[in-house]
């Protein structure tokens, strides 16, 4: 053991001695460090994604597209085939008298910071039989942006509802995750 220490000490001295003699063997420069604490990103749900009343297609599978229009500032519905449309007045559900609407959430974060919204590619409602391909309105590509000066952004999640002929009457529902992330 002693021998090993000696070798290590000798080696250390040897390294030290091999270093050139410098007129200035150290230098310093002022370094700075900084930090910016930004607001945590958060989601505040306002309303749910609700397709209201839907009539199954007479055959095959039909779709209902529900998305928010930034032009008209209203929810837009498109039934394919049109026979799935229960009619303007009957779109309102008796229990709450609300029309079909996109999910409205408010995402808050640091102004000037970019963010991304993500939703599942497809969700199956309960009981099984109906699926939805959700997307962030008004188009699938606008799933993020930059927080404005106020720090909050309105996000609308719509989607394509798929219904097959013969789907039993009833209420269908499911919860799904909406994720907001800083880029």
């Amino acid at each position, binding site marked *: 053991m002693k021998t090993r220490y000696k070798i290590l000490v000798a080696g250390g001295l040897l390294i030290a001695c091999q270093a050139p003699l410098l007129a200035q063997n150290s230098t*310093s420069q002022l*370094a700075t*460090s900084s930090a910016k604490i930004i607001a945590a*990103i958060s989601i505040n749900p306002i309303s749910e994604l609700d397709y209201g*009343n839907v*009539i199954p297609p007479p055959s095959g599978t039909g779709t209902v597209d529900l998305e928010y229009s930034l032009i008209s500032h209203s929810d837009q519905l498109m039934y394919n085939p049109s026979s799935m449309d229960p009619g303007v007045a*009957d779109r309102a559900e008796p229990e709450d008298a609300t029309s079909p609407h996109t999910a409205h959430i408010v995402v808050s974060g640091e102004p000037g910071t970019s963010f991304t919204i993500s939703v599942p590619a497809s969700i199956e409602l309960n009981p099984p039989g*109906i699926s939805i391909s959700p997307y962030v309105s008004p188009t699938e590509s606008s799933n993020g942006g930059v927080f404005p000066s106020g720090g909050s952004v309105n996000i609308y999640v719509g989607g394509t509802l798929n219904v097959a002929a013969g789907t039993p009457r009833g209420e269908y529902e499911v919860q799904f995750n909406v994720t907001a992330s*800083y880029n």
Partner: protein
Amino acid sequence: MKNSIKLLAALSIIGFSGTAFAQNSTTAAATASATIIQPISISVGPTALEFGNIVATANGGSVTESANNTDYSLDAGSDPGAGNYGTGGHDASFTITGANSANVSYSAGPITGLPGTVSLSIPGATGSGNLGVGGSLTVTYGGTLTIGAGVGAGALSASWTETAMYN
């Protein structure tokens, strides 16, 4: 030791040169829902609109069948005389079924099958209503058959498509 301090300082610069994210991602649960309702359907009958036997006059005229079978009248131009009209006449009905308490509208399409000198008016076959708690609405209606001058004896029949839809 100085070198070690410098190294730590350098690492510190690297560590703080970016933006600090206390929480850079968050997830919230959203709810999606839909209500599947019964497709709307319409069933015509059980009785069809029937005007019975009519004795046409040389000047023509019209026959009206009311929606409740209690009123059957001819105007002066087609009056064949007492006892000669209204035989077997009755109103018509159809039933709409669908979602409970749904508002619906219904309409009669173009009437076909009648000769050009005869026309049929059925305003009661077009309208709107509510299916109620039972999800059903029966509409009873009559009509007015207008017969032009010179129409010969024979059977007359007409048809149209009755359409119902959710409002």
